[in-house]
């Protein structure tokens, strides 16, 4: 074996190994942050009490501030978005939700969120969401109740 390996000094091999380790550790960062974004669309009414599985926490939060008692899941969508990439969700009543991650400092994720009705914006907000936590937007009317949109975001 007369390859060049013998002539490569040990320190260089050590350096290369260290470099590869670090490179692999950083590859997610180099590939760009992925914003795992989960949107739950819920119909809340004041009818007979009942909560769909998985909505208990939201029902508790909303129930403590508003008098809604019945929570039904309309849809749920998980998206992996890159920075600046728009995620779209169709809402009942000819509405759309457009959510765009615009940056993160590790502990908080910045999102731009817009709701359109019949193509026209009716609501938009910029929030800094705790990484791994969620925010609830409520208010759009739907059949004797309201639509709740729970948005959860995390970068890992």
């Amino acid at each position: 074996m007369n390859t060049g390996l013998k002539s490569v000094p040990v320190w260089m091999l050590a350096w290369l190994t260290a470099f590869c380790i670090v490179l692999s550790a950083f590859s997610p960062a180099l590939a760009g942050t992925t914003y795992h974004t989960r949107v739950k669309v819920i119909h809340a009414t004041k009818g007979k009490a009942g909560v769909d599985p998985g909505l208990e926490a939201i029902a508790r939060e909303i129930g403590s501030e508003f008098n809604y008692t019945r929570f039904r899941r309309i849809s749920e969508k998980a998206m992996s978005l890159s920075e600046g990439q728009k995620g779209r969700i169709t809402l009942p009543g000819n509405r759309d939700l457009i959510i765009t991650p615009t940056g993160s400092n590790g502990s908080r994720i910045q999102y731009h969120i817009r709701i359109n009705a019949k193509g026209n914006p009716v609501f938009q907000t910029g929030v800094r969401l705790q990484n791994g936590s969620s925010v609830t937007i409520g208010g759009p009317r739907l059949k004797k109740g309201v639509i709740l949109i729970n948005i959860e975001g995390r970068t890992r």
Partner: protein
Amino acid sequence: MTPCNRYTKEFISRVADNEVRQEAHSVFLRHAKTCAACAETLADFRQMGQLFSSHTEAEVGRIRTELPPITVTAPQGAQNRKGLWGWIGRMGQGLASVFGRGAMGLKLASLSAVALILAVSLYTWQGDSGNGMVPGPSAIVNSVDTYGSSVMIIETPESHHTIIWFSET
């Protein structure tokens, strides 16, 4: 005033919310100096943000709210990622001056840079893991635009969950 096709309202709203990257932000501001339409839209969005802050505080006095001041910093993450390689380069150069010039000095410096980065990244991961939730509301609301309808921002007392409630007109 002639309408402007160069920037969308959404983009300008994001400029007002400081959600746009530094370069794009500056480019837009330069444009707005000579474009009355864009300058006016930006002023409107900024005013709306201020109106919103005072309006909400008055309206939801009984409910505990947290509406921190609108910050002027660009998203830190975006800057960090973009400058990662530049940063490594700068750090290598900086360390080279410590270890001395020449090939050997530079190699030593690079190796140290790698070790330093590894230490910093491990430290960051440790800081983020566990139940290292930052204190405060689940979401800090930088801006809201409801196009005429009213809005309330609520932070639930126990779990500090943020609820943004708007009533459609």
